[in-house]
């Protein structure tokens, strides 16, 4: 599993975000939560899992090393 797989998951989540299947549905989950809102709350949890997967499988180690090396400092301060 690498960067490409994380990108595929990202695009899949973007597609799932457009949940046309519950657009017109006002029914309640557990008696209080509109189903469209429940889906999107679950979507937020899946985003967190995707974030974890991106860190686990696509973390930019080389970029981290590049930043930590001594380098030229040219900012104003």
């Amino acid at each position, binding site marked *: 599993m690498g960067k490409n797989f994380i990108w595929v998951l*990202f695009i899949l*989540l*973007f597609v799932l*975000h*457009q*949940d*046309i299947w*519950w*657009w*017109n*549905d*006002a029914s*309640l989950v*557990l*008696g*209080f*939560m*509109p189903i*469209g*809102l429940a889906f*999107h*709350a679950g*979507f*937020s*949890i899946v*985003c*967190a899992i*995707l*974030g*974890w997967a*991106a*860190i686990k499988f696509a973390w*930019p*180690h*080389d*970029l*981290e*090393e*590049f*930043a*930590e*090396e001594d*380098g*030229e*400092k*040219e*900012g*104003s*301060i």
Partner: protein
Amino acid sequence: MTTLIVIVLYLCLLLGLGFFSSRLFRGTSKDYFVASHSIGPFLLLMSVFGTTMTAFALVGSTGKSFERGIGTYGLMASISGLVHAGIFFLIGIRLWAFGKKYGYITQIQFFRARFESDRLGYLLFPILVLLVIPYLLIGIIGAGKTIEPVTAGAFTEIFTNPTAPQWLGGIPPWLTGLVVSLVVLTYVFLGGSRGAAYANTFQTIVFMIMGVVAFVYIINGLGGLEQAGKVPARINAKGVIVQDYQFNKQSGELLKNDPPKPIGRVLNSDNSDLTGRQPHLSRTPISVEFKKKNPKTGEISSFERELGIPFITFVSYFFIPLSVGMFPHLFQHWLTAKSAKAFRLTVIAHPLCIMVVWVPCVLVGAWASGVLPPGIPPPAVLSAMLNLLVGDPILTGLLTAGVLAAIMSSLDSQFLCLGTIFTNDIVVHRAGSKKYSDKQVILIARVFIVVIVALTYVLAMWAKDANVFDLAVWCFSGFSALFPVVFAALYWKRATKEGAFASIIAALVTWVYFFHLSGYGGEMVIGPGIIPAAVCFGAAALAMIVGSLMTKPPSDETLQKFFPPIKKL
């Protein structure tokens, strides 16, 4: 009065925190601007989250849900969970790496170096200021709208000209705005970036806890979770929108209206069977006409509103959260990180934090449609629900302090960042780094921050009736239109300064054009429901591509610097 005392105590506590963080201040400009790159994962998460969640998240989301229903969450919150985390990962860490490596404090320093152009900074600076100002305004406006209802009756002989008659004696928005501005100014002035990070963390914890407490009390006020689900306004067999319940403040009970109270009627809808439907709980667009009473004259008038969200609008809102890639205040927070690893918690927890704050707010907004008059100003919905359903004045004070915490935790970063970019990108950049001492640099930043706070306050009083949600969306639209610049700078070797100029100008021209058409901050869609941000983004991206391909590629030296031959970089 008790409520007001609790709020004042909270503000004093915050000032105390400002004095405390000023004792930790190391006295250097690097510490003032980016806390000497010393911020760890938890503080980074809290400050980044606190900065992105403002009046927009609490006051705006509740008001928008009251207007359009639960689609508000998908429109802004869940897509932000996906896109923000992606940007922290793809843009934030990379910008942090270049900032750390080459000593950048601001976005403009990075862009000047990447695009080999000083002038780019002078073009970008006023645009960034122009776009941050609406973001600042919503904080001041949101604070004013929140405090007046919950302090109603406290000073009936002093404040005799309320926004609405029922709020007589409440602290007027001008005074709230003034106090909030001064408190934020004080702790930013004293503690700089470190002070803002501590204050943000404290305030983010406060507003998240208070948000959950408020939610629990509102649920109890509505008679429990299942009962709350029945409260939103309903459409009857005749197409009339009715409220089935009312909250009796004296008895503290939710009572059934018999017969149900009519508040409006359906004008048109794509859905033929709306009988019994609670329109705030789905997303089907329905045009309705509501009645409202002028609070000062008592005159009844009608107004139209679209409930639900058109599908095209929903999809095109994807462009709005791209704005975080170009927020100058977020760039500054990224630069405070101790290491790239500090970003990990933010990438994972940011979507969850958004959920914890937004789900309750969106539910409260939808429930409010069943107990509040439809003509109430959307930014006042959250405080009106607190005022109606939470009887205890101490608790109301604490909950209101939570709302103020959310507002101030964004204002501080924005004020600080404007001071930082003015000092570094204009003053020091022009004069040379040796002309001013470190102390003078900090003084210049502080003076500019005072000027910006004063300007923001005046503008907020002028635009005091603006819709917080819509104004925020305009601010985000401008920054998302600039997103192609940062993305191309980091990931496209062929991106040139001419492309960057073309992209920034295209973003500015399209944004100003649509902002003007909207009446300077109103809700606006193009054609079948596309939001202006999508068009501005498209124009800016196209200008970047065409402008870059038509001009000479960047120098080898620049390419070596920003695209070093490292594996996977």
